């Protein structure tokens, strides 16, 4: 995987993870144009894009778009499932995750992502293992996470 972007329906970036070295300028340019392209697509359209020389897989969950750029020989469908698994992990961790969870706790979202994808490759696809690793680290945290009741991404 080359990068993953999370952005809202309004085009606001919520999370970005780059697995290939690019300059800030390039990253910004790609982000801007890709967000525009994806937002312009209609709901019933295909989740895969051949965009410039990239293969892009995106999926919308409620108000959030998850968007991955993958290598040419990579499997699009499994990438779609990577996105889904990530949303499942977020959901399990935050308890019915919503966009606000990710806005206010984006560093947590990053930690979960790093535990799930390492260097752009799925490192652990077992939900239990990923969350165990995160929670172990979290145990050291003194703060407790209050429950959320905003709109869930996965419903």
């Amino acid at each position, binding site marked *: 995987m080359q990068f993953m972007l999370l952005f809202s329906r309004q085009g606001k970036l919520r999370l970005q993870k780059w697995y290939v070295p690019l300059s800030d300028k390039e990253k910004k340019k790609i982000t801007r144009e890709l967000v525009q392209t994806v937002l312009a697509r209609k709901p019933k*359209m*295909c989740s895969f894009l051949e965009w410039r020389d990239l293969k892009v897989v995106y999926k919308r969950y409620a108000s959030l778009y998850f968007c991955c750029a993958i290598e040419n020989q990579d499997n699009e469908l499994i990438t779609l499932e990577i996105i889904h698994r990530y949303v499942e992990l977020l959901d399990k961790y935050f308890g019915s995750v919503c966009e606000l969870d990710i806005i206010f706790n984006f*560093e947590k979202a990053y930690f979960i992502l*790093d535990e799930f994808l390492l260097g752009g490759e799925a490192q652990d*696809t077992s939900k239990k293992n990923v969350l165990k690793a995160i929670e172990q680290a979290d145990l050291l945290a003194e703060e407790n996470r209050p429950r959320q009741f905003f709109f869930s991404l996965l419903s």
Partner: protein
Amino acid sequence: MSDVVEKTLSALPSLLSLDSQAGAGKLSPSSKLGNLIKGITELTSKHEEETLIKKELESIKEQVASPNTTMRQMKEIMVRAIYCEMLGYQASFSYIHAIKLAQQGSVLEKRVGYLAVSLFLNETDEFLLLLVNTVLKDLQSTNLIEVCMALTVVSQMFPKDMIPAILPVVEEKLTHPKEIIRRKAVLALYKFYLIAPNQVQHIHSKFRKALCDKDPGVMTASLHIYLQLIKENPESYKDLTGSMVTILRQVVGGKLPLDFNYHSVPAPWLQIQLLRILAYLGKEDQGTSEMMYDVLEESLRRAEMNHNITYAILFECVKTIYTVHPKSQLLEKAAECIGNFVLSPKINLKYLGLKALTYVVQQDANLALPHQMTIIECLDHSDVIIKRETLELLFRITNAQNVTVIVEKMLEFLRLTCDDYSTIDLVGKVAELTMNSVFSLGGDVMQPDIPNNFLRLLAEGVDNVEDRQLRLFAVDSYVSLLQGETAKLPQRFLQVISWVLGEYSYLREEESDPGSVMRLLARLLDQRHTSTETRSWVLGAMTKLCSSPVSVALARDVCERYLYSGSLNTVLRQKAQELMILSQDTKLRARVLPAEGRLESPEVDSSLSFLDGYVSDALAAGAAPYKSPHQRQEDLVQEKALSLEPYGLSLPVSLSSCSITDRRSPTLLSMSSGLSGNSTELSHQEGSTTLKLEGVKRVWGKDGYLAQQQSAGETPTPLVELPSPLLSPQSPPSQKPSSGLEPDQEKRQLASSLFVGLGSHNSVCLVRLPSTVWLFIKNCQSANQSNVVKSLFKPFYINSCQSKNHGSFVKVSGIFAARKSCQTDDSCCFPPQISCISGSPLKEVKGHSVSVCLHTVVMKRASVQVELAGLLSYQRPLGQPQAAQFSLSLSLKHFLRPLTVSTGDYGKMWLSFSHDLKQNLRLVTTEHQEPLTATLDALKGKLHLHVVDIIGSEGIVACRLLQGPGQGQPCLLHCRVHADSLAVWLRSPVPELPDSLLYHCQKALTET
């Protein structure tokens, strides 16, 4: 759903101010991040955001620099800095503090520090060097979480040159008791391998150990490395095939812990990884491929279609099957699987189906055939991505016959997406490539507007980088073509080449000597096979090119040959003269052919106003005013001058359609309209003839005339405009196709032009050729006064009797028209189903009473029954001409023949046919035979079917329909005994064939 979110978002500011609410705990106003986010949410303009963030960054900067800031505060500050960076504002001053935080913070602070580092920095950043010591320390920590963090950051980015510093410690972790550490260590090594393969060369043996790790997670991680290694050098890892196959078998068999299941599919990521590895191992290696056939088949079978994840596995599996050494049985299954993708209503799967097809048609273009209609639909899909993939697929199946349509489709796409220049680039190249291969194949038979379209594509468009690249690409490829053997290139292609080189050679001029293109062109002129028209194109190109001294010399040389050695062609002389003058006079040349003018399209003054002066001068000098050719013609007529028209058609052969009775119309009319003489026969039949008998005789007189007619009728239509069977040009206009069917027919027609030239089981009836039903018309004596009609239709000849033989021979001239009589609902709006047999007696027996005509009848459209109607006209010497009608009912079974195929071929055909039908039939029971065998024998006997194979309670049967050229169109039956009936499944490439055949099967079995 999203509305709810929007509401939540708009309510955010007020929510944030309520600190006692449940959700407010983590968004407490004291949280500075909370404040920042809240602040941004309240803003309305980008400008306000900028101001706010600038202020925020100022405050962050102040705080990080302050010595009083604790690490805990620093962690909070760093989160805000990350947030600002995410919004697109640079916070580079905080990078060093992120490293510091990772270095000095407690575990939780460290975690944020590492995260900030991995988000802020690139692996080329020098800041990273400052991190090496921290990483080294954490790797050696006793705290597992610290080790994990260090390995995580290392797997994301690490300075290449510093790998040796930490490599031993990472290697050590491969034997760590905790699998999470082992796994991350493997992934870190994978990263090292990617950025510096040489650094990890010596630890390949350790990779093997990781592959054999008892924890599936570690093993999975090691496959990333192996995929990479095997991709680069499959030969060295062939010995791993067995292990990979075993692992895959275990995974597929559900031997992994349930933890690894994803939506109850066992470790799909692992499966896909293994399938990809197997593809690399088995590519072009039969031995290795044979080891994996079983497990591939099992993967295909186990992946039941229910969830995206199984489709993901299936897709990968299909790709692997088509990459490794082929095995027909597996290929069949994979092809079936692709069919499921293509036909899926889910757009993502459809896309992947097209993609898979694109991949596999390179091996076997026939695989696209069963999906013609879907492909056509996708071509007009509202999603541009689907369209593009479809074009890509078509590009792969382009051949000399369908190139016209495909290129047209591409250009169409191009016009629609002219704003997206990356698309232009892509499709332009596609068109370009198609042009090169196809111009060389069929250039001269191509319609001239194709090259024109292509040239316009090249010339149009703004002068941006993509266009330049495309042009340069064209120039380069043409130059290399000319450097090779040019004798075989079609003239039209040479013309295109000349034009492109003339226009765009300047694009490459800086890198090659200016004379080279000129020399290549001059060489073209020297070759004998170059046509005059092409030569004039070449000279035109040279005129554009002769700017350098070398070129001028070359040009002069060429011109002298043309001007003085006496070429007789005036156009060439003219061009050569122009070239001569322009090459000598640079100033004139610059005016006539300005270099910068190339890209502007010239303005055409269609009113020819620049000639006004000349015209008025001429008029003043007494010249007659200009009259258009049309005016002149009218003047001539008025003056009753000589008519220059050739003799008008004076024979009263205008079609007597008004007098045609129901009996024969409209079919007969349509048949007759192609044959000029027919109407006379008809009018005669109606008793309204005004013709002399000789007229009849003359029209139908000699065999030669009739033979001519026939051959005209049977000339293969040009391939580019082949009609589909439903839209044959013979179809009478009066038979209105119901409007609902029209788009479908359009698609079919498009399909026939797109898929022409693919495969032997072409479902389109392209050319009507004589085939196998012989029709004997025999005169024999009868007391009956009425003319024809008694027809015995046995095996395949007609035995018609005719009355009143008067001794001398009867000349038979036949116009036979086919007319359907069965009025089933679905077919009543279609043209006749038997092809026209125009009546030339192949053999005329000057016997006492017998004349034999042989005619070929094929069933153009499968139907239960067709009626053959015809008109016999004959004449006794000195007698009145007579005519007789006859009609015959022909059943589908008369057109059926056994189709002898092997079980394997049957399987292949089965997959490629798209029209199918299932029905339960009655089983025939006899005493001494199995019901299945008895039933199939009965069908075989009555319908001329071929029983391919009977296995257990299933039997497969094949037949073909004499429909078009050659062998005819197949229909396959799959029969299975189910309770006490026979479940029959029919498949055929011909739409109506299964239905009609089923009717006859039913009938045959009922009669038994």
